[in-house]
């Protein structure tokens, strides 16, 4: 089972863009991001606060749809999912 995790903007600079990773069944959205972010202290701190919760400004998507940060522990990821993590948008 593999998923693609995409980081953008400042997070891309910290994590290096797209990461394709194997996951075990039942892995939560939150669990997946923590596992990846845990390998990079600066990146982890950019995304999570001191209590291990997503920082308020972090935006999450699963297959192009926004996911509420507060439900990230309940939502699990499945084979082939595309997960995106990014800071506030600034287009226009």
């Amino acid at each position, binding site marked *: 089972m593999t998923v693609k995790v*995409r980081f*953008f*903007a*400042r997070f*891309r600079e910290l994590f290096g863009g797209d990461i394709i990773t194997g996951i075990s069944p039942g892995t939560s959205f939150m669990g997946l991001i923590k596992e990846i972010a845990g390998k990079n202290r600066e990146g982890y701190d950019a995304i999570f606060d001191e209590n291990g919760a*997503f*920082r*308020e*400004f*972090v*935006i*999450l*998507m699963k297959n*192009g749809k*926004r*996911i*509420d*940060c*507060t439900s990230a522990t309940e939502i699990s990821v499945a084979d082939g999912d595309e997960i*995106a993590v*990014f*800071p*506030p*948008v*600034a*287009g*226009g």
Partner: protein
Amino acid sequence: MIAIQTEDVDIGQLINAAKKRSTGAVVVFDGVVRDDDIREMDLEAYEEVALKELEKIAVEAQSIHNLCSVDIIHRIGRLAVGENILIIVVSAGHRKEAYEGSRFIIEAIKAGVPIWKKELTRDGSRWVPGEHAHGSGAVKH
């Protein structure tokens, strides 16, 4: 035409193509790289998602504001001061619809389309903070 691309576009051509028999007003918004003591700007998008969101915004604007046509071209990549970042061309029967439709589109883009800008200054770089500086915990979309 709805696009995310590195190339610039010919605004005059877009205006001509936007004119339908029922068009009485065309409004163009052209977002430009401003010289906030920068050299250049680097733009990045979550392209597939950003494009879909631009398409959704165009459809919404067209229906809410009764537009004859909508074009949105958002550029990405490296842009110099004075270059076009975002071009929105809308046409409508009357000016009120055209202005409001145009404004609706730019505000929706600023609020939710996954595109980011980094300003390259003389001594480094800085990410432009979004105007809606909240993540999914706070945003309704």
